[in-house]
């Protein structure tokens, strides 16, 4: 079922084709990638393609938040600590310059080796991490900085201390802070968009998703364990709940797909960062000109409309 998503891509493709080739090779590369996305959308992703997205989203060489930060932002200053209890390194927060303007950034961070992974807790934040994120959101609001969030987490950390420190409530309040913000917000799912831990920092005006990222209500393994009573059926579960970017676009959950280098972001972090920066820049441009109250109203309306049902649908 193509429709909306296909139309959007076709429109973007036509727009790019009609542009004078100012950026030369990069633009033609972009054209090629859009055409590829369009081909994918017209042909619904197969179960195998969905699973490939799951694998690529979790690829150990996939660029993480800090890989993009060093390629997209100038003068980045990382800000630490939740001003209450701890500095959760599974979430990176800070300020930097994006195309000349100051932005606030929040992103999940995974690690590349064992030490780093345990330091970053595999990108699974504690409530302290979300409290740090809220502090940065409020900072952005106070100073009128646009907020960029990069989502890449298997989920919020499932531990005893995390529960005792109020994991559920903190995820709820983080979303509430985003719903209140008067700054423009652009979020991109850059790897795993795992459930509550992801949505906690993804209540944005524009939600983007990289071509091979996944966004889901539960991990394929978790879903398989519950519904199939066998975590080994993860592939079947993923095919059933369709966490890939094309389906998310069709369902209206994301606004656009960010293209990746041909074989995936992990093959060329520089190219992936250029493409990501282009998309985020485009989204930020779309949001300039709206007042803070207007942004907030539209943001809430965007989420209000998700999954709205026809009034009467009796069996």
């Amino acid at each position: 079922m193509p429709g909306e998503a296909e139309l959007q891509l076709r429109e973007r493709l036509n727009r790019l084709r009609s542009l004078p080739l100012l950026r030369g090779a990069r633009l033609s590369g972009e054209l090629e990638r859009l055409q590829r996305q369009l081909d994918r959308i017209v042909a619904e992703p197969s179960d195998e393609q969905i699973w490939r997205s799951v694998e690529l989203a979790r690829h150990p060489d996939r660029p993480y938040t800090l890989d993009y930060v060093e390629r997209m932002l100038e003068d980045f200053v990382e800000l630490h600590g939740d001003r209450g209890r701890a500095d959760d390194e599974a979430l990176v927060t800070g300020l930097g310059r994006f195309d000349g303007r100051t932005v606030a950034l929040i992103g999940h961070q995974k690690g590349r080796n064992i030490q780093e992974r345990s330091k970053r807790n595999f990108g699974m934040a504690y409530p302290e991490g979300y409290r740090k994120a809220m502090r940065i959101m409020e900072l952005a609001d106070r100073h009128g900085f646009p907020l960029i969030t990069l989502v890449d987490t298997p989920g919020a950390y499932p531990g005893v201390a995390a529960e005792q420190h109020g994991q559920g409530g903190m995820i709820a309040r983080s979303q509430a802070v985003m719903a209140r913000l008067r700054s423009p917000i652009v979020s991109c799912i850059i790897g795993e968009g795992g459930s509550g831990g992801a949505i906690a920092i993804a209540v944005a005006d524009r939600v983007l998703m990289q071509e091979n990222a996944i966004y889901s209500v539960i991990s394929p393994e978790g879903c398989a364990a519950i519904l199939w009573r066998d975590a080994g059926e993860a592939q079947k579960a993923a095919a059933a709940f369709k966490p890939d970017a094309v389906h998310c676009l069709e369902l209206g959950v994301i606004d656009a797909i960010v293209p990746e280098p041909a074989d995936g972001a992990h093959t060329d972090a520089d190219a992936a960062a250029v493409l990501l920066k282009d998309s985020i820049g485009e989204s930020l441009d779309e949001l300039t000109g709206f007042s803070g109250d207007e942004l907030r109203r539209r943001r809430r309306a965007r989420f209000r409309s998700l999954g709205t049902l026809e009034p009467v649908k009796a069996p």
Partner: protein
Amino acid sequence: MAARIDVSIEHKHALPEAKADGKPHPNTCPACGSHYRDDELAQHLNVCPQCGHHFPMRARARIASLADEGSFTEEAAELRSDDPLGFFDLRPYTERLAEAEVATGLGDAMVTGHATLDGAPFQLAVMDFAFMGGSMGRVVGEKFTRACEAAAEHNIPLVSVTASGGARMQEGILSLMQLPKTVCAVEDLHDSGGAMISIMAHPTTAGVLASFASLGDVIVAEPGALLSFTGPRVVQQTTREKLPDDFGLAESNYRFGHLDAIVARPELRDYVARLLRLFGNAG
């Protein structure tokens, strides 16, 4: 003040005897083993007269326990979920939905509407765990949102009663989107000056705990209710940590500062009435 019943001790004894085969009878108290007829339980608001254990309470009974008799008018009752993903696990989602409706007599896992308590008007949103584990899909998200909008429009408080395993997997990413959707609805309600009272019953977990249920102006829970983002089994399996006996229970949440109070079911009506007087315009 509310009676506080620490069920963690009973809990400790109850665990080892996890019945070898088959589930225990739903009218047998898992804490003390007493057994009741349906009418005996109903008469005591589904609270064990022996030990105070809170049995699950269905949405209709809950509404009756919180509203003036005959004052409840249901809204959005016609909403039904379709199957946006064509979801099929061991059985099709549509079949599970139909079966749940037949078994519970409900269109989905939440009943919403307007009622009065001691004459004070309020909006109600009550979840029913019997309908697919009280899971939140698009119908629950939509009903809750409309309840917030109605409360804002009529300038009356909203009382929510939650009992949910979390987001409904069968609606995939769209059910995750019900988290921000309901959060935005509460924000709109709060902006309009409206109040929300959140009552967490057993269990209030995952997606519902991580969204509207945690945003009440006042948050209370029933004794012994499990209120955790991740359930004890998954925490145990993932972390191999030794779980405290009261892991995720209302009593633990209260101790860590996540709840305003733990209120036993027999006191709940008066407690809510008092809050409605405090928040309501009637004064």
